C-alpha cells in the first residue's frame, strides 16, 4: 500500500515535471528561435524585456492571455474551440515514452527517468503525433474562412505524404534493436549510435519530421506569405497561443525522438558512472536539433505544396522503403555469417541507393513545372 502511494507520487511528480518542463521549454524555445534567427539575419533580437530579453516569453504570455478572443460570427463555435485543444494535447503527451536518462537512485528508491516504458512506444508516438493534424484541419474548416480552409487542406495533403516516410524511418532502429520500446532502442545504442548504421534513415526521418511539425521549408499550412496565417488566421489570444504552443512543443518532441532513435538518446561518455549526466547529454542533443531547425528556417525558401507531395511520394517514400529493405538484408547477413561487421553493409548500401534514386528521381520531382 505504501509502495503504491510512493509510486503514484513518483509518477505524478515526473509527469508534472515533464509537462511544466515542456511548457517552459516552449516559452524559451520561442526566445531561442528569435535570438538565433536574429543572429542569422544580422539583427539583435528581443532585448527589451529583462537582461538579454529573457523575460520576453513572459511578456508574450501575458499579452496572449489578456488578449480579446474573437470567434467569427459564422464559425462553428464548438469545433472552433475544440480544435486548438486537439492540437496541443497530443504534443504534450508524446514525450511520455521517451527516456531522459538512465535509472537513478534517490531517497533509497530507483527512479526511472521516463514516465512509461511502453512496449509499443514507437506505435504510440506514430499514432499520437498524427492526431494533431485533426486539430489543424478542423480549425481551418470551422473558421469559415477561405484562407484557413486552404491551410487545413494543405495540412492533410502534407500529412498523407509524409506519414509513410516517417513511419518507415522508425523501422530502421526497430530492426537494429529488435525492440519497439524506446528504452530498449536507447539501450541497444550503448556502443554505436544508430545514426551511423542508418544515415539515410535518419535523414529521411528528420525531413519528414520537419513536415510533421509544419516547420520551414514545409510550413505550408500556415504559409504567411500566401495564406496570411493559414489555418489559424481567425484565431486570437490564448487559442492562437495553443496552436503556437503545439507547434513548438512538437518541435521539442520530435527532436527528442530523433535523438532517441538515432543519436543514442541520453547516452554519452561516462553516463554509466554518473547517471545525472544522462539528462544533460539529452538536453544538449535536443538543443542541437532545435538549432538545426531554426537554421533551416533561416536559410531555405518554402517548397510549393504540390512539389512537397511529389517529393514525399516519389522520392522519400521509395528511398525509405529501400532503406528498410537494405537494413533487413544487412541484419540477415549478420545472422547468417555471425559477423557483426556486416552491419556496416547497411550504411554503405543505403547511401549508394539514396544517391542512385535521387539522381534518377531529379527529373520526376524537380523541374516538373508546367
Amino acid at each position, binding site marked *: 500500500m505504501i509502495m503504491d502511494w510512493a509510486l503514484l507520487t513518483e509518477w505524478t511528480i515526473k509527469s508534472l515535471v515533464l509537462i511544466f518542463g515542456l511548457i517552459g521549454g516552449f516559452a524559451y524555445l520561442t526566445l531561442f528561435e528569435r535570438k538565433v534567427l536574429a543572429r542569422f539575419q544580422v539583427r539583435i533580437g528581443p532585448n527589451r524585456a529583462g537582461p538579454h530579453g529573457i523575460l520576453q516569453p513572459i511578456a508574450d504570455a501575458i499579452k496572449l492571455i489578456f488578449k480579446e478572443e474573437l470567434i467569427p460570427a459564422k464559425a462553428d463555435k464548438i469545433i472552433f474551440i475544440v480544435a486548438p485543444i486537439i492540437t496541443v494535447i497530443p504534443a504534450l503527451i508524446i514525450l511520455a515514452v521517451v527516456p531522459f536518462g538512465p535509472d537513478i537512485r534517490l531517497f533509497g528508491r530507483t527512479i526511472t527517468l521516463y514516465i512509461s516504458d511502453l512496449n509499443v512506444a514507437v506505435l504510440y508516438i506514430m499514432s499520437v503525433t498524427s492526431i494533431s493534424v485533426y486539430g489543424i484541419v478542423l480549425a481551418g474548416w470551422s473558421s469559415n474562412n477561405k484562407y484557413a480552409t486552404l491551410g487545413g487542406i494543405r495540412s492533410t495533403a502534407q500529412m498523407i505524404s509524409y506519414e509513410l516516410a516517417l513511419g518507415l524511418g522508425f523501422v530502421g532502429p526497430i530492426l537494429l534493436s529488435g525492440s519497439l520500446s524506446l528504452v530498449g532502442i536507447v539501450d541497444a545504442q550503448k556502443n554505436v549510435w544508430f545514426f551511423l548504421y542508418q544515415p539515410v534513415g535518419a535523414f529521411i526521418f528528420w525531413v519528414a519530421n520537419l513536415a510533421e511539425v509544419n516547420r520551414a521549408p514545409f*510550413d505550408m499550412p500556415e504559409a504567411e*506569405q500566401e495564406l496570411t496565417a493559414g489555418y489559424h488566421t481567425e484565431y486570437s489570444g490564448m487559442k492562437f497561443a495553443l496552436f503556437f504552443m503545439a507547434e513548438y512543443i512538437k518541435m521539442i518532441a520530435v527532436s527528442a525522438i530523433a535523438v532517441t532513435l538515432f543519436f543514442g538518446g541520453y547516452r554519452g561518455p561516462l553516463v554509466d558512472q554518473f547517471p545525472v549526466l544522462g539528462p544533460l547529454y539529452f538536453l544538449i542533443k535536443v538543443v542541437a536539433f532545435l538549432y538545426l531547425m531554426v537554421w533551416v528556417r*533561416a536559410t531555405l525558401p518554402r517548397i510549393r*505544396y504540390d512539389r512537397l507531395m511529389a517529393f514525399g511520394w516519389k522520392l522519400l517514400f521509395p528511398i525509405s522503403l529501400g532503406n528498410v529493405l537494405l537494413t533487413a538484408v544487412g541484419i540477415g547477413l549478420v545472422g547468417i555469417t555471425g559477423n557483426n561487421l556486416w552491419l556496416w553493409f547497411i550504411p554503405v548500401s543505403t547511401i549508394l541507393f539514396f544517391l542512385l534514386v535521387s539522381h534518377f528521381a531529379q527529373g520526376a520531382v524537380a523541374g516538373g513545372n508546367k
Partner: protein
Amino acid sequence: MTEMYEHIDESTLDGMRTLVTEEAVEGKTVLLNMGPQHPSTHGVLRLLLELDGEYVVNCVPDIGFLHTGVEKNMEAKTYTKAEVMTDRLDYLNTVGNNLAYCLAVEKLVDLDVPPRAQAIRVILTELQRIASHLVWLGTHALDLAAMSVFLYCFREREMILDILEMCGGQRMMTTYFRPGGLWRDVPVEFEGAVRNFIKIFPARIQEYEDLLTNNPLFVERTKHIGVLKPEDAIRWGVTGPPLRASGVKHDLRKVRPYSGYEQYDFDIPTQSDGDTYARYLVRIEEMRQSLRIIEQALNKLPYGPVRSNNRKYVPPPRSEIGTSMEALIHHFKLWTEGFPAPKGSVYVAVESPRGELGVYLEGDGGPKPYRVHWRTPSFVNLQVLPLLAKGHLVADLVALIGTVDIVLGDVDR
C-alpha cells in the same frame, strides 16, 4: 466620358459575371479576395482570385487603394515646387523620379545642365536602382519564405540611403535634383562613401546568389513560373527587367541616352526564358552593371558648377543674394511666382528600375504646368499579372507579384 468608364459593381451577381467565369457564379470554383491587406501584395494591391482548388483560374487586379492624386496636385504648383510630389510616386526610385521630372522641365524651358551635375545624377540614380532592386530581391525572397535574404538586402540598402541622406538631407524623399542641376554639390565624404560601397557590394551580391541562384527550392519555385513571351511583353507595353528577361534588348539608357549615359560602358543583361527565374537573373546582373556605371562616373567626375547659370530658371547661390540686387530679385521671383514655361508639350522617359518611366508635361505659358501625366512602369507591368498567373498555384502568385516588381505608389498616382 462617363460611358467610357463603365462601373463594375462586384456586389451584384451580374457585376461578377463580367469578371469571372460562369463556374464561379455556380459555386464550382472559389472566389478569394487577396488584399488589399495581405502580407504579399506589396502594399495595397487587391486581387480578386477565382480558384479551382489552389489553381488560379482568373486573377483580377483591383487598384486605386493608394490613389494620391499626385498628377493633379502637380498642376496646382509651380514647376519648382511640384517636384516634391515626384518623390512620392515610386518611393523606391525617388531620385529617378526627380530625374525624369527635371529632364522634362529642362526640355520644356530649354535649360542646360553642367556636366558635374549630370554625372552626380547618374551616380545617384544608379545607386537608387541598386537600392530598388535590393528591396525587390529582399521582398521577392521573403515572399518565397527565404527570410534572411530580406534582411541582408536591407543592410546594403541602408548604405545607399545613408549616401542619399548625405547628399540631400533625406533618406528617401530627397528632391535633390532640381531643374537645371542639383540642389547643392555633394559633400566631401560622398566619394569615399560611394567607393566604400563599390568595394563591399560585389561580395554581397555573391552572398545573395549563394543563397538563391542554385538553391533547388528557389529554382523550383521560380523556373517556368509566369512565362512572358516576348510578343506578349511588347503587346502589353511591358518595359524594364520583365521585358529584358523575355529576350527583348530594350533599355532607354542605351536606346535614348539621357544625362550622359552614352559616355559609360555597360551591358544590358537579357535572358530568353521570360520566367520568374530569368527576371531574377536579369535584375541581379543589372545591379552589377549599375556598379560599373557608378565606378566609371565617379572616376571621371568633372569639377565645376552643379547648377545652370540661367538665372531665369535656376535660383542664384546663397552667397550672391546678399551682394547682388539682381540675384535677390531672381530669388524672390522664382520662389513666389515661379518661372513661366513656354506653351508646348514634352515627353521625357527614363529607365527606372521597373521600366520606362515617362513624364508628359504641358506648359501653357504660365508658371504652373497645364497638364502633368506620368507613364509609370508599375502600372503598365501590373496589367500582365492576370496573363502570368493563369493556371498557376496561389503559392506561385505571390512569386509573380514579386517578380513584376510593382510599387503601389507608382501604380496609383
